[in-house]
C-alpha cells in the first residue's frame, strides 16, 4: 500500500487530507513542522508527500529544496494559500511536482496525489497506451478502438493521451486543462465538458462499452469497466 507523508501545520486541514487519502486506500503520516517533515521524508520510505508552503520554522520551499539536494525524488504536492502565478512557478522550480491552492477540493487533491504516485511508478515512456480495446500509438499519433481508426484532432489526441496515461484515476477539469493546454486557471465547467463530450462521441460509439466516465462534481475517469 502506498504511503503518503502529510507536512501541514494546520490540524484541521491535515485531518481533511488524511481522511480523503485514506478513503482512496492510501496510508498517511502527519507531521506539523518543516524540520521534522524533512527528517521523516529523508528517512522514511514514502511514495508521495503533501507539503504546505507556509510552515513554522522551515518553510515548504526550503523543505523541498533540501529534499532534492539530498537526492530524495519522492513526488511532492505543494499546497499553498498563495495562488499567485509567481508562487506556483517558484514552488515547481524548487522541486515540487504539482501545486494546489488552498482551500482545495479534497477530490482534486486526492486525484493529484494519485497521478503523482502513478507518474512516479512508471517513469518509462511507453510507445503505445492501451485501455481495453482502445489503443493509442504515440509514435504514429493514431488511435484505434478495436479495429476502427479514430479521426482525432490534435487537441483531442492530447486529451485522450492524458486520460489514458492516468486511466483508472479520476482527473479533475483543472488537471485536464493544465495538462492539455498548459494554462493554470479554472476555465469553467462547460469547456472541459464539451471537449470530453466530443471525444466521447468519437471514442464511445453506442454499440460499444463506454470508456470515459463522469464522476459527478469531481471530474472524469477513463477505464474499461
Amino acid at each position, binding site marked *: 500500500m502506498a504511503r503518503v507523508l502529510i507536512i501541514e501545520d494546520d490540524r484541521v486541514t491535515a485531518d*481533511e487530507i488524511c481522511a480523503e487519502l485514506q478513503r482512496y486506500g492510501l496510508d498517511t503520516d502527519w507531521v506539523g513542522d518543516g524540520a521534522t517533515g524533512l527528517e521523516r521524508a529523508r528517512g522514511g520510505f514514502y511514495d508521495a508527500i503533501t507539503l504546505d508552503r507556509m510552515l513554522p520554522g522551515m518553510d515548504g520551499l526550503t523543505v523541498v529544496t533540501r529534499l532534492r539536494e539530498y537526492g530524495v525524488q519522492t513526488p511532492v504536492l505543494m499546497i499553498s494559500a498563495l*495562488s*499567485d502565478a509567481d508562487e506556483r512557478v517558484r514552488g515547481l522550480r524548487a522541486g515540487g511536482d504539482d501545486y494546489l491552492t488552498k482551500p482545495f477540493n479534497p477530490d482534486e487533491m486526492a486525484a493529484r496525489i494519485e497521478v503523482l504516485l502513478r507518474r512516479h511508478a512508471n517513469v518509462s515512456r511507453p510507445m503505445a497506451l492501451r485501455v481495453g480495446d482502445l489503443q493509442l500509438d504515440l509514435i504514429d499519433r493514431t488511435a484505434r478502438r478495436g479495429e476502427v481508426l479514430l479521426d482525432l484532432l490534435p487537441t483531442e489526441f492530447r486529451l485522450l493521451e492524458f486520460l489514458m496515461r492516468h486511466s483508472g484515476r479520476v482527473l479533475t477539469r483543472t488537471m485536464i486543462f493544465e495538462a492539455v493546454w498548459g*494554462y493554470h486557471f*479554472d476555465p469553467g465547467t462547460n469547456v472541459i465538458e464539451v471537449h470530453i463530450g466530443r471525444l466521447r462521441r468519437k471514442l464511445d460509439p453506442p454499440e460499444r462499452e463506454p470508456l470515459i466516465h463522469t464522476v459527478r*462534481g469531481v471530474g472524469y475517469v477513463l477505464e474499461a469497466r
Partner: protein
Amino acid sequence: MKLGELSRISTVRLLPVYGVLFVLWSVLLIGWVQYDTKRYLSGVVDEILRQRVHYLSHIDRERLPEAMAQTDALDLRGVMLYGLFDPQGNKITGNIEHIPEGVSLDGVVHAVPGGIQRIGAPEPVNARGLAKQVEGGDVLILARATSVLDQVNTIIFRSLLWGLTLTIIPGLIGGLWLARGPLRRIRAIETAAQPIMRGDLHQRLPVTGRRDELDMLAGIVNSMLEEIERLMSEVKGVCDSIAHDLRTPLTRLRSQLHRMHREASDSAHASVVEQAILDVDSLLDRFRALLRISELEDMHRRAGFTEVHLAGTLDHVREIYTPLAEDKHITFSFEIAPNTPTVRGDPNLLLEAVSNIVDNAIKFTPAGGSIHLRLLPDADAGARIDVIDSGPGIQNSEREAVLQRFYRGTCSNKDVSGSGLGLSIVAAIVKLHGFKLQIVDNPAGGAWLALMCGPARTGAT
C-alpha cells in the same frame, strides 16, 4: 513650458489687473504732482508779475517806457512780455504789438486765453499776465510766458512714461517667471496623481514643506487618499475574509454531501444530494472567482511578464472554444492580422482574459448567431483584440456596470448561468497589465469588446 498653459495660472491672470491698477494709480499720482507743481509755479510767476507791476506803478508816467524797456533788458531768457498802449489801443512802447484779446483791466494776474504774440516771435506763446490802466488812461500790459511750466509738465509726463515702462515690463517678466514655480509643482502633482487615477491608492501627492497653498491642498488630498485607502482595504478585507471563511465550511459541506451521495440508498435521495453538490460547487466557484479578482488586484509584481505572441494566445482560445460555439450552433470566425507586435504580459492571465470574454460571448449569443474574434495591430496600443458577437449587446447605461463585480445585464437571459464575475476578472487582468478594455458601439447590435493591449493613454476613453 507653453505660454498657453502659463496664461492659465492665476498669478499670470492677475498680472494684467495689477498692471491696469498700477497704471491708474501712477497716472493719478503724477497728475496730482503735476497739478501741484503747476499751481506752485503759477504762484511764483504771478508773484513776479505782481512785484513788477508794483514797481512800475510807482514810476512816473514819463519814465514808464524807459523803466519797461529796462525790464526787458533784465529779462535774459526772453520770457517777459510787456506793452504800453494809449486808450485807443495804439502801442506806445513794448515787445508786443496789440493788447491781447480778452484781457480785463483789473490788475489781477490771469492766464491769457489765446497766448501772446511777441514781436519777432514765430507764434504766440502761452502766458500769464495782467492789464492795468495807468495815469492818463494808458493801458499797461505785463505778462510772462509759461514755457517753464510747460517744460516741467513735459518732464513730469516723460518721467511718468519711463517710470511706468521700467516698472511694468520687469513686473510682467518677473510675474511670468514667478508663475513658473507653481506651474512646475502642479506638473509634479499631476505626474504623482497619474498612478492614483489609475487606482494605485498607495501613492501620495508631493508636499514640499513650504506650507504654502499648494502644500495645503496636496495635504488635504493626501489625507483624503489615506482615508479612501483605509476604507477600501477594510471593505476588501471584509470581502476577502468572508470569502475565505465561507470556503472552508463549504468545502467540508461538499465533502459530507459527497459522502452522503456515495452512501445514498435510493436514486431519488441520490439525485437530491447531487443537486446540492452542484449548488455548493457553484457557490465555491463564485468565491474562487471573488478571491481571484482580489488576488489580481493585489498583484503588483510583474515578474511573470514576458513577450507574448497574441496570435498564439488567440489560437489557443480558438482551439478551446470552437467546440463550445459549434455545440451551440454559433459561427465562430477568426481574423489574425500578420505582423501584430508582441505585447508584454503574463500569457496565462491574457489567455484567461480573452477566454472570459469569448466565454461570455458564447453564453449570450443565441443559437444560429455569430462571434468574430480578431487580432489587429493598433497605432496607439500596439495590438488590439476584438470580440464581436451577434447577441443582445450591452446597453450604454450598463457599460460601466458590466465590469463591476456580480453585475449581470438586465436584459440578460435568465437561463444563462454565470456568477457575473467573468468580466470583473477580465477588468482586473487588464488593469494589472495597464491595458484597456473598451465596449465599442456596434452598429449591428451585438456586443463588441475591444482589448487594447498596450499602455493605456490617460484621458482616452
